[in-house]
């Protein structure tokens, strides 16, 4: 890795790492006796380890100029493996907390193992650790190829990826120590948030620099989506995390907003995180890997335009549907509801465009589990967006709100759409990246597919049942006109579904672990001949740019 950096980049890396080490030291001193200090020490140790890594490779010969003749894929490879490791860890924690809900005594009376601390480890682990790494890794791959340009330098992608993972680790370890802002999906405290802003701006700049170097006259759809993801997530993250730390030596901070304004800011963030992190980014992924794998043209460029701008415009208004029947003024709720309903159309246009793209390649869907992952992802995307718009309608929401139906909805999206498209994209790119004929075992890909599908279906059906039963029990009145059930009664009714959900989670986790094993074994097998790969490279600066359509 260090051997791939130029001397100049190695020096810059050293400067960054030393600055990081000094920051970590300052944090450790200022935050003695506080989790802030523990994180300072962690940052310092990581940075010093980085310094040693750079020094140990410092005198390796510089990479030759011939590197510019190929795409820079080492960060993508790293990102994919790390994403899969995060997936296994975070899904394991997810299933753990699923069992914890069925059997609450499993905390063993320790603070770190309580549901409230483990749950964000699961959510941040899958969304940011798994999803985020997969998005960054595939975006590097896709933007280089669809721009026919190599990444502008070797250091920035590493800064983005490693810096991002440092954020993820600080977040997850913080939760276990009880560090949280108590904002769902935005739990990390102020110092982790500031670090993520730095990393994210570097990511944005890197993306723009690569696009600026492109040799294609047009920007491909996948890049629109990836860019929307990067740009909007930056905006959401900054606004929602505006906070004042109680001191420079403490992890604790207070939000700039309070009361219902805070709730609205949080759900404006939360819903758009679903939109621009979990939808736009992964649509970018779908738009590259699906046509590539299917060998079919995108069904309709015009539908791409409609859905992209529809999704981008409508999502921004929809967040208030998370706060139906709360202290939020009614007009904000009903406005959010109407935009949520309109949002369904561009969402389905996207899903339809993806599925129509498979026309002429359905035989491949039948035979190829990798493409089938992507197909099922598009189907679940359609199902989940329909369900989402439906649940945003106020009377429906009065039944579904606060129940497991919401949890089922989220997992239909997270397991069925986000994870499936990611597995498809990863299985497609691993042989390409490591120059292999196929995955180590296509049979294991098949096994993973069916485990993932079965796990998702079990999970989602369990939560639908549980959620609707729960919602109905909460609103059932007896003949005297008082509530028929106590809350505990609804817990008893949910118990079997909680067990089913945890079993579904085991299926899904098992599939992911098999996937990681399969990827690892693919990396360990021998590469194929170089001559076949001659076409997979950028256009050099000196060469004439391709005309459109060539």
């Amino acid at each position, binding site marked *: 890795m260090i051997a791939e950096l130029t001397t100049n980049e190695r020096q810059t890396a050293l400067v960054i790492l030393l600055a990081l080490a000094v920051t970590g030291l300052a944090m450790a001193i200022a935050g003695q006796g506080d989790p802030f200090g523990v994180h300072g020490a962690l940052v310092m140790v990581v940075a010093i380890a980085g310094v040693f890594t750079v020094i140990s490779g410092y005198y390796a010969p510089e990479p030759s100029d011939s590197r510019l003749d190929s795409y820079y894929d080492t960060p993508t490879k790293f990102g994919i493996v790390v994403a899969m490791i995060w997936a296994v860890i975070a899904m394991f924690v997810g299933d753990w907390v699923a069992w914890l809900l069925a059997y609450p005594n499993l905390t063993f009376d320790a603070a770190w193992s309580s549901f409230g601390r483990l749950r964000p480890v699961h959510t941040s682990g899958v969304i940011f650790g798994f999803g985020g790494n997969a998005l960054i890794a595939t975006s590097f791959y896709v933007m280089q190829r669809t721009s026919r340009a190599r990444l502008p330098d070797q250091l920035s992608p590493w800064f983005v990826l490693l810096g991002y993972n440092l954020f993820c680790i600080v977040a997850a370890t913080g939760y276990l120590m009880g560090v949280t802002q108590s904002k769902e999906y935005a739990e990390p405290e102020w110092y982790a948030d500031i670090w993520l802003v730095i990393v994210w701006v570097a990511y944005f700049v890197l993306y723009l620099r690569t696009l600026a170097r492109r040799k294609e006259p047009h920007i491909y759809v996948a890049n629109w989506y990836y860019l929307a993801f990067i740009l909007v997530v930056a905006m959401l993250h900054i606004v929602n995390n505006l906070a004042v730390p109680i001191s420079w030596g403490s992890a604790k901070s207070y939000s700039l907003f309070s009361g219902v304004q805070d709730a609205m800011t949080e759900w404006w963030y939360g819903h758009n995180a679903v939109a621009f992190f979990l939808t736009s980014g992964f649509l970018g992924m779908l738009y590259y890997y699906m046509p590539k794998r299917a060998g079919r043209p995108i069904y309709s460029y015009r539908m791409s335009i409609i859905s992209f701008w529809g999704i981008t415009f409508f999502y921004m208004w929809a967040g208030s549907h998370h706060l139906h029947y709360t202290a939020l003024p009614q007009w904000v709720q009903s406005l959010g509801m109407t935009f949520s309903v309109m949002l369904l159309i561009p969402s389905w246009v996207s899903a339809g465009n993806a599925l129509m793209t498979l026309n002429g390649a359905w035989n491949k869907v039948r035979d190829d589990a990798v493409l089938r992952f992507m197909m099922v992802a598009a189907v679940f995307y359609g199902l989940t967006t329909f369900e989402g718009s439906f649940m945003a309608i106020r009377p429906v929401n009065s039944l579904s709100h606060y129940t497991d139906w919401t949890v089922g909805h989220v997992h239909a999206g997270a397991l069925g759409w986000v994870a499936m498209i990611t597995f498809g994209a990863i299985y497609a790119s691993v042989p390409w990246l490591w120059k292999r004929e196929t995955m180590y075992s296509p049979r294991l890909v098949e096994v993973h597919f069916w485990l993932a599908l079965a796990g998702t279906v079990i999970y989602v059906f369990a939560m639908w049942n549980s959620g609707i039963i729960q919602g109905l029990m909460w609103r059932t009145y007896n003949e005297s006109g008082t509530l028929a059930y106590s809350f505990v009664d609804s817990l008893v009714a949910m118990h079997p579904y909680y067990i089913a959900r945890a079993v579904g989670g085991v299926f899904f986790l098992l599939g992911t672990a098999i996937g990681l094993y399969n990827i690892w074994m693919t990396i360990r097998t021998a590469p194929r001949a170089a001559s076949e790969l001659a076409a997979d490279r950028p256009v050099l600066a000196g060469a004439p740019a391709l005309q459109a*359509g060539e």
Partner: protein
Amino acid sequence: MAKEERDPHTGYLTTGHEWNGIIELNTPVPRIIYFFLGAAFLFSVVYWILMPTWPLGTTYTKGLLDSDQRAYVDNTIKQAALQRADWTARIEKENYADIQKDPRLMEVVRETGRALFGDNCAACHGREAQGGKGFPNLTTQSWLWGGTPDAIAETIRVGINSAHPETRTSQMPAFGHDGMLKSNEIDNVVAFVRSLSNPSTKDLPAAKVAAGKTLFAANCAACHGEDAKGNSEVGAPNLTDPFWIYGGDAQTIETTVWGGRQGHMPTWESRLSALDRKILALYIVGLRKPNP
């Protein structure tokens, strides 16, 4: 120039662009999509006209239906209270004995009390009111502070060792810990106490039980009574029945005598209405089973 080609499978032209082997068709947007976009927009416009939606500086469009969710909730709650008024008024007014005689009112008590108990009491006393270690079983004939509906309602209102100014207060001293009884004396008291509820206990030496009886009279009878049947004035449990809050085995009784006990029950006066507390008291009386 972009070179547009016809896709043989769909028959549509491509846009003429290509990225890393990916091409796009220039398929026109199907009519039905415009139709649904229009329909969704139309639905929204109608909703905007009818309901409060758009902000206007310091106010917002109120909508033709004049819908106000706060007023709606207030109204619904009032309506519901009105529908219940026939029986709520009676339970509030009538005394316990009269209510217990009315099967229709008692049906309401059972229906409503069940959910009230589940939401407020079950966390400690258990779903079936069977109690648990440290939390009394409410289905027995044995009551710390009295088992009449009145006494139960009062316990619910003020709690036990709670923050309420009129709380029921009870504390069993730590006889061993505070040096009031020596270790062998505690052994004797424990033997005596065990013999009370379980006369068939054969392994208890008569001498120990007799010594324990003397110690009991001197130290324990003030609260638990000469006959050890307890005193609901001070919340002292009856030691002669088979029901135990913390446990009736030698080990647990010894722990109790050594370290004392001070149970807690919260006050519900500010959380539950007088009506709800009355329903709960009646409901709990109804759970009682005859002595085994």
